C-alpha cells in the first residue's frame, strides 16, 4: 500500500492526467452530470430551487457518510447508526416535551449520539476479537429497544413545542442550514483524511492492522475515536430529522445504516478497509439524492427507485473488480 517513495500511503495511485479523469471520482462526477441532465429531461420541475427544497431529509443522512467513511477505511463497519438516529430523535423529542428549550434538545441529541458511538467504540476496542458487524448488530437492537421502551405503548412521540426547533430549519435564501453543515463537514473530513497524519493512520490501520500497530500507531484509540465520531454524527442526523418530522417513532431511521454504507461503497470506499476516498462517497451521495428526487418528481413507484439504486450499487462494486482483473491480466502478459 505504501507509495514508491515510502513516505506516503496514497489512497489513489499516482498517475497522469488521463488516469485522473478516468479515476473513480472522475467517473462519478460524469455520472452526477448525467443524472442531472437526465433529471432535467425527465421532469420539468427538476431545478435548483426544488432540489434544495427537497434535500434536507437526505442531507441529514449525508452527515453520517463522513463518519462511516472513516469506519470503513479502518476496515470496520457500524450498522447501528439507524438505531442511534432513532434513539437520539426519541430522546430529543421527550426532552422537548418535558418543557426544555431547543438548547437542551440539541445537547441531548448530540450527547446521546456521542454516548452510543462511544459504547460501540468501547466494545469494539476492548473485545478486538469480535467482528464489529456483530457488535453493532447487538447495539443496533439495544439502541432501538431503548427507544421503543422510551416511546411506550403507542410507539410514537410528537413534539408539542414545534416553534423553538424551527431554528434548525432555517434557510439562507433557498439553501437549508443542513446544506452548510454538510459542506463544512465535507471540508473538515476530506482534509483530515487526505492531508493529516491522522488520516494516513486510518489508511494504514485499514490496510493492515497488525503492521500499523507495530509501527507505533495507536490503533485502538483511533478506532474508539472514529466510532464515537460516527455516533456524534448520527446524533446530528437524529436532531435534524427531529426538526423536520417533529417527532419520533419506532420506524425512525430504519435502514439509514444501509443507505449510508451504500453511498460509501458506491463512492469507491471498500468495506475491506484501506481503500477509497470521502470525495467519492460525497459525490455518490449526491448522485443517489439527485436520482431519488428526479424519480420522485416523475412519480415513479418508490419501490422501483429502491430497485434501481440497488442495481447501481452492485454494478459499482462489480466495475472495479472487473477492471482490476483485466489490468492484472495485462500486467502479467507484459511481464
Amino acid at each position, binding site marked *: 500500500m505504501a507509495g514508491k517513495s515510502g513516505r506516503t500511503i496514497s489512497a489513489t495511485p499516482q498517475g497522469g492526467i488521463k488516469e485522473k479523469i478516468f479515476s473513480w471520482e472522475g467517473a462519478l462526477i460524469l455520472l452526477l452530470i448525467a443524472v442531472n441532465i437526465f433529471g432535467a429531461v425527465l421532469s420539468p*420541475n*427538476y431545478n435548483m430551487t426544488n432540489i434544495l*427544497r427537497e434535500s434536507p431529509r437526505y442531507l441529514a443522512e449525508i452527515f453520517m457518510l463522513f463518519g462511516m467513511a472513516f469506519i470503513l477505511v479502518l476496515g470496520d463497519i457500524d450498522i447501528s447508526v439507524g438505531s442511534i438516529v432513532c434513539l437520539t430523535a426519541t430522546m430529543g423529542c421527550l426532552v422537548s416535551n418535558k418543557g426544555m428549550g431547543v438548547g437542551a434538545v440539541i445537547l441531548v441529541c448530540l450527547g446521546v449520539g456521542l454516548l452510543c458511538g462511544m459504547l460501540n467504540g468501547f466494545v469494539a476496542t476492548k473485545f478486538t476479537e469480535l467482528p464489529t458487524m456483530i457488535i453493532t448488530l447487538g447495539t443496533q437492537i439495544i439502541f432501538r429497544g431503548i427507544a421503543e421502551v422510551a416511546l411506550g405503548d403507542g410507539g*410514537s412521540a*410528537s413534539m408539542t413545542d*414545534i416553534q423553538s426547533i424551527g431554528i434548525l430549519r432555517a434557510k439562507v435564501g433557498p439553501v437549508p442550514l443542513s446544506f452548510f453543515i454538510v459542506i463544512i463537514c465535507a471540508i473538515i473530513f476530506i482534509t483530515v483524511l487526505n492531508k493529516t497524519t491522522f488520516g494516513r493512520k486510518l489508511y494504514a490501520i485499514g490496510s493492515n492492522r497488525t503492521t500499523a500497530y507495530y509501527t507505533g500507531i495507536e490503533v485502538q484509540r483511533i478506532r474508539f475515536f472514529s466510532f464515537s465520531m460516527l455516533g456524534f454524527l448520527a446524533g446530528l442526523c437524529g436532531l435534524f*430529522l427531529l426538526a423536520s418530522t417533529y417527532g419520533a417513532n419506532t420506524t425512525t431511521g430504519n435502514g439509514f445504516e444501509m443507505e449510508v454504507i451504500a453511498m460509501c461503497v458506491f463512492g469507491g470506499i471498500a468495506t475491506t478497509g484501506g481503500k477509497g476516498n470521502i470525495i467519492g462517497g460525497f459525490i455518490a451521495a449526491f448522485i443517489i439524492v439527485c436520482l431519488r428526487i428526479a424519480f420522485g418528481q416523475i*412519480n415513479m413507484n418508490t419501490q422501483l427507485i429502491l430497485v434501481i439504486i440497488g442495481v447501481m450499487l452492485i454494478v459499482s462494486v462489480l466495475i472495479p473488480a472487473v477492471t482490476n482483473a483485466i489490468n492484472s491480466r495485462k500486467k502479467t502478459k507484459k511481464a
Partner: protein
Amino acid sequence: MKKKVLSVLMCAALAATMLAGCGGSSSSSEGSTGAAGGDTSGKTYAIVTKSAGNPYNEKEAEGFQEVIEAAGGTCIVQNPESATADAQITVIQSLISQGVDSIAIAANDANALASVCQEAMDAGIQVLTLDSDVNSATRKTFCNQAGVQEVGQALIDAVYDIAGGEGQYAILSATSQATNQNAWIEAMKSIQESDEKYSKLELVEVAYGDDEPQKSTDQTQALLQNYPDLKVICAPTTVGISAAAKVLQDQKSSVKLTGLGLPSEMAEYIGADDAHSCPYMFLWNPIDLGKLAGYASIALVDGTITGAAGDTFEAGDMENSPYTLTELADGSGASEIILGPPFQFNPDNIEEWKSIY
C-alpha cells in the same frame, strides 16, 4: 492536479443543474398559464396513501382516481415506500416541486406532517386529508369516514332493531383508552338517554378485549355466562367483532352480534338465519371516501369551497351530495366533511365486499 480536474468537473455539474433548472422552470410556468381556466382539465390532483400494499388505502385511491379522471383532471396516486411520516414527507415534497393543484393525504402522523403541509399550502397548493387527519391548522379540510354521532346512531339503531326494541345488550370494545371506541360508545349512550324510543334497552356492561383475539373471546364467553338474558353484543372494533362472531356461532348461541367489522373477516358469520351470528354490521366504504376526497379536491381547486365551515359542494352521484363542511368539535374552527352514516354490510352485499377488504 487531481483536485483541479475534480473541481472543474464539479463546477460543470453544478452549471448543468442550473441550466437544467432554467429550462425547467420556464416550461412549467408556461404550463400553469395555459391552464388558467375554471375547469379541471390541465389541473393535477394528487393523493398520498399511508403506504404501498394497504388494500384499504388502495380502495380510497381508486375512488379518488375515478372522480378526478371522470372530471377530466390529471390524477397522481402516490404510495410511500413505508408507512411512516418520513416517507410521506419525501413524497409530498416531490409533489410540491411538481406544482400540483391539490394534495389529499391519508396521514401517518398528525404532527410530523404539519410542516410539510404548511409548506405545500404556502406554495399555493390545496391540502386536504382523508381517513386520518393532520394538525388541523395545516390543511384546508378533512374527509372524515366516521362522524362520531353517525357511528353512534347507526350502532344503537342496529342494537334496537336486532334486539326487537327491548332487552339487555353489552358492548365489547377494544382497550379502555381507545379514543375512537370511547367516543362512539359515549355517543351511543347519550343517544339512548336522549330518546324515549330506546328506553327499554339496557346496557349491562362495556367489556374490553384489548383488540386481542384471545382476550376478546374470553370476554365474550364471560358476557354470555354473566348475563343469561343478553340479546345483543355490539363490538365497535374489527378484532372484537370477529372473535365474538366465532364464539357465538360455535356455541349456536341465541345472542346476536353487530358492530364494526371487516367484510373479509366477517363474511362467514353474516346471515339472516339462526345459523349465523351476525345479521348485519357496519364499516366505512373506502371507495366512497376516496370519491368524496376527489370531489372535495376539485371544489377546493376551483374555489367552490375555501375550507371554511358552512361551505357546501356538489359531489356528483354520491348518496349524501351536496356535502356541507362542519366545524371540528375541538373548537379550533377548522372544518371536516363527514362521509355519512357508516356503510351497512348485510347478507345481500357481503359476497361482493368480502374479496375487497
